């Protein structure tokens, strides 16, 4: 609101101060309110910390599960897909090959499942206090990154065991984590916003995650995908993320730059759309939750 005169009130105060907040029935879709996110950055970290902390309270082994459970998954996958189904792994030992993909994939699928119900799970907060609602899926996706980082330790240790020393590509891991985070957030913003209204989406998430895994190069190498289908295949943003992780952690076969670019553009489009959709839906969260 600009400075305006209020002739019918008092002649002394001709200037009206800028309101801190204007509450209106309608908000234009281009009001992104990204500055709000920056203002609430401490809350994002606090909720993130709470999620991690409560996940491991009253657990004896605690964070140790982050190392134990993937070891079992790797063992099972190696037996089934490598020894039995004879799926190739581009010359990398299969356990290492599959685990370097399971890290981003596990992060992605868990984040999707966790964050799509996150807003509904926080209904007591949503109906009682204001903060940008988008904080909740952001914090939920951010929290999973910690598991991912713990996984790096295991994958590097496994690499050394198999005689693979890390290359300088490992320095790009923070960037790749960022890309994984953006991908997970992009998809979960859509799912979270829909879930508040239609709980069916939780079941859809489960199915989607299963199908999606086989549509991504987790248990098989990208080289198994026919050349002419590569571009279509890489419309799946997780292809770029997984290939990036494999390259950074194992140092083999540098990633296809075209493929990585396609992935990043797709992620950006879904993320921007998801954010706008979420902002549109969040206005009625407190009423329908």
């Amino acid at each position, binding site marked *: 609101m600009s400075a305006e005169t209020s002739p019918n009130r008092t002649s002394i105060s001709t200037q*009206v*101060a800028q309101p801190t907040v204007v509450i209106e029935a309608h908000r234009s879709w281009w009001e992104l309110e990204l500055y709000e996110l920056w203002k609430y950055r401490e809350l994002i970290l*606090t909720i993130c910390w709470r999620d991690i902390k*409560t996940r491991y*309270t009253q657990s004896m082994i605690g964070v140790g599960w982050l190392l134990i459970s993937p070891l079992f998954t790797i063992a099972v996958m190696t037996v089934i897909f490598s020894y039995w189904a004879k799926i190739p792994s581009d010359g990398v030992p299969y356990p290492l090959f599959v685990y370097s993909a399971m890290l981003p994939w596990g992060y992605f699928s868990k984040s999707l499942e966790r964050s799509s119900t996150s807003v509904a799970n926080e209904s007591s*907060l*949503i109906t009682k206090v*204001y903060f940008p609602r988008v904080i909740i899926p952001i914090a939920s996706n951010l929290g999973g990154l910690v598991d991912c980082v713990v996984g790096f330790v295991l994958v590097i240790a496994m690499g050394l065991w198999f005689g693979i020393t890390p290359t300088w590509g490992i320095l790009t891991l923070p960037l790749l984590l960022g890309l994984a985070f953006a991908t997970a957030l992009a998809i979960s913003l859509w799912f979270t916003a829909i879930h508040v209204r239609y*709980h069916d989406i939780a079941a859809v998430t489960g199915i989607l995650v299963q199908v999606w895994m086989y549509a991504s190069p987790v248990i098989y190498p990208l080289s198994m995908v026919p050349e002419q289908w590569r571009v279509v295949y890489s419309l799946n943003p997780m292809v770029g993320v997984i290939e990036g992780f494999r390259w950074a952690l194992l140092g083999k076969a540098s990633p296809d730059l075209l493929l990585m670019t396609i992935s990043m553009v797709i992620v950006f489009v879904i993320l921007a759309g998801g954010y706008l959709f979420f902002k549109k839906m969040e206005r009625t969260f407190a009423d329908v939750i």
Partner: protein
Amino acid sequence: MSDIAIKAEHLSKRYVIGANRQRFHTIGEIIAHKLSGVFMTQSTPAASDATLLKALDDVSFEVKKGEAFAIVGHNGSGKSTLLKILSRVTTPSAGRAQIYGRVGSLLEVGTGFHPELTGRENVYLSGAILGMRKAEITAKFDEIVDFSGVERFLDTPVKRYSSGMYVRLAFAVAAHLEPEILIVDEVLAVGDAAFQTKCLSKMGDVAKRGQTVLLVTHNLGFISNLAERAMVLQRGQVKFVGNSSAAISAYLRSIEDNKGSCDLRGHANREPGLTPSMTSVRLTDKDGLEKQSFSVGGEWRLELEYASKSDVRLMSAGIFISSAAGLGVGSFDTFMCFPPPHRIPSSGMIRLYIPELLLCPGEYFVSVGLMLDQHHAYDLVRRAISFSVETSDLYGTGHMLSSDHGLCVFKGTAEILT
């Protein structure tokens, strides 16, 4: 610099309710709805007036900086919706509100508390959710803990706290929120009496520090103690805005819509677990005319109609009068009026007479009840009806009594001895 803290203009909030509501929670419901639409010749009206609940209807008001402003209204009057809009939890359907200053809203005690985390961790968590910076919480941490009185259990998960400890810690965090505008909903009604008093004085401090307070409560005592101005909401509309004592009278009058009688069947204030048998209560003057307002020293009559099963042996029927702030003023019943054996018919009407109503001007509530014996009620409706007492020249000296004189009126005489 503007002196306005909150300016609400034509705020409305509509909810679609009933069978026609267009809200589906499973895909199946959507499909079923779409299919039913196929076979319909005309589309269903988007939302007719009957299915629209106007939780708030064209509400406009202003709260000045540094003012304590109260909102009163019955359940469903829209006061919680209004607070939710002002604290940005939900959005209005129409209208706008401008807020000048940092808002802290307490719509609940213990917002954001997590049972698995310790008291210390929850102070930080809840503080952050309520809008405090980490540095701010650290600076006030000792003060918060001190106020709550749970320092010995700071490192215990709050799920092991007693409910009293939990509430005290939760309120302590909230009380140290120092926004420019504090929005509070009923949270004062927590904890034991001593802690409530502590909360109340803390709220008073907040108001005295020049912060703006917007308060919703049922406790009229709090309003008269804390608030300078108040607004009465009724069915989503503003009934009254003005100084708090006038607002309290307006609120109490709105309870009975200014009637001196009340249907007791299905009354919301009936004690649970009793046998609803009182049917109506009526207040009249000495001529038997129904009245809601009486003058100091005038005659006051109450008629209570009831019908219970014929085999019920009732002992007495009586009333209890309390002040607007909830203070007991006195009680009166048939037990006092008649010698033993105490027995009243199982159905009929009781009329109680108070020939001289010696109460100071103000608003009063009457609770009515039927007793089986001295300890067991058969039917009891608390604050069934209200009445107001208007000032009069009781002493014939031109002195008009006011609510500042207390509750009781002494119809005494004085003698000056020299």
